[in-house]
């Protein structure tokens, strides 16, 4: 574990912190109200929660909603940017993967809109 929340007693913003609990793939994870899902996941010691097409792990990269690396499913809604969504007590977060069976790859199987 390397990323973490600044402990209340030495946080110069003098913050409070109402606890909340979410689940990540069914496993409980604790955080505080106001955290984004990405902040909560990082503070709970996770560094990655999504897989790129090759299966390589991904977590937070841009942190401000631009790179879409941190996508999760929240209460059944897919493709939610974890760095922009505030955690709500009881959220059920499911991590995901873009890893696909290789042979189906091709230009026509794209998910993007192109230009």
């Amino acid at each position, binding site marked *: 574990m390397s*990323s973490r929340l600044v402990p209340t007693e030495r946080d110069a913003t003098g913050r409070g912190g109402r606890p909340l609990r979410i689940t990540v793939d069914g496993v409980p994870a604790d955080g505080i109200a106001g955290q984004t899902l990405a902040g909560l996941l990082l503070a709970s010691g996770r*560094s990655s929660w999504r897989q790129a*097409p090759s299966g390589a*792990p991904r977590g*937070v990269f*841009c942190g401000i909603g631009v790179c879409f690396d941190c996508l999760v499913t929240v209460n059944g809604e897919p493709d*939610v940017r974890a760095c922009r*969504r505030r955690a709500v007590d009881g959220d059920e977060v499911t991590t995901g993967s873009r890893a696909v069976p290789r042979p189906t790859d091709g230009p026509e199987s794209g998910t993007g809109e192109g230009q």
Partner: protein
Amino acid sequence: MPAARRVAVVGAGPAGLSAAQAALAAGARVTVIDAAEEPGGQYHRTVPAAYAPRRPGHLQHGWRAFEHRRRRVLAHPRCTWLPQTSVWALERPRPGQEGPPRLHLLCSGPADGAGRPRRTLDVDALVLAVGAHDRVLPFPGWELPGVCTAGAAQALAKGERVAVGQRVVVAGSGPFLLPVAASLLDAGSQVREVLEANTAATTARGWGRRPWELAAQAGKAAELAAHAAALARHRVPYRTGRAVVEARGDGRVEEVVTARLRADWSVLEGTRRTVAVDAVCVSHGFSPQLELPLAAGCALGERAEPGSDTAGTRASGPSGSRGAPDAFVRVDERQRTSVPGVFAAGEITGIAGAAAARAEGAVAGWSAATGGSAPRDPGTRRALRALRRSRDQGRAFAGRLARAHPIGAAWPGWLRPQTVVCRCEETDYGSLCAAFATEAGAAPRVAKLNTRAGLGPCQGRICGPTVAELRRRLAGDAPDRPAEGLPAADPHRRPLAQPIRLGELAAPSAPLTGPGHRPEEESSS
């Protein structure tokens, strides 16, 4: 008295909030739109209200002035504040009709939620102040978890009090590395070193030219000095001419390889060093968020050299920098873009920092509210002159910044054939080199379909400028042959500016109503 003009401001950072304040002062009805819950943008990102902070201004520069402006704007009876709202598309007027585009909004919902109400908004003037995000050049291993942008580390430290790592290297180029390192130290991280890729000679030359201009930037200088003092207090080395050229680790970053660079950012062999880290925060500059300006039809150009005859930006010449990483929205003296009724302010017109963004925003807000006509009363004229002076000082600062922290041309030397360039689709450097080796394959749309670079969820926001730059270098000026009826390819062109769910798209849309845009409900103030 004529009906008050309706102005929409997209983005509530320093530029947007300042634009809203000026437009309100000039008598307009103003709608302020931002994706976040609170105004402030990235510069004034602060902990959420739910944290109940006793000192929300901790780590904030200019906090009291910002608080004051925020209250004035949001509480104004002619202001409608739309937090957590995305502009997902701009619809240009039909041929023959004038005026700014219609805004298509996804209103007031949790980020990427489902079933957010879809609204349209028609205004007399539109101010775009959507800002920028970190530009990160690829290097081997940059896709490993634990490697993040400097902006991510800053957003998490300032906005959530989360430290991205305990042993961190901050690397890249530009003065932004300093506040990020300072925030990490404040959050309790050990910053092992801060690496500026440009050599000491380059930065000294850039900052040292025309030193008298710096006097006008005393605020900025004091801010940077405070960060430098924090680094010194914690004995964090600041090294110039050195960069992170590789990140390594099993499933996450465990160490970085740093190397000394020449002025062109080529690696000096024999200078590689390995540093153990659990996070590395990188920024090589900023990319303006250009999808909305492009959707509105705004012309782009390079930022003009400060002190040159042309104010603002100059058009790209025939050599073509359209879509180049250094392309910004072209604006005139009054912050007007090339599209009637559309104004631009802040980082999308050139990376110049918060003070310049505020001045540009005020000029843009004034112009938007008055239709760009010259003010009659001497007081306003004086105020506008002072704002333009402040903006020009900011632009001079931006020029200095660009000269002191350029991106060195030899950075692709850090790459290996298998280095990921497009993070989403994992397109590697070797595939791009192969694609750009033939004239037919190098056409942007062909290369995109063949290599998939830019086709993933981020829609080329991260790799777009890099791929465009690699294409220019490897394919030279090979002509783009746009398919019939399609505009020329551009790394920033995204018809859907923000993701929208199919269910939301299918749901009917209604015009937005409220005090910002319904004249019959205008309050007497």
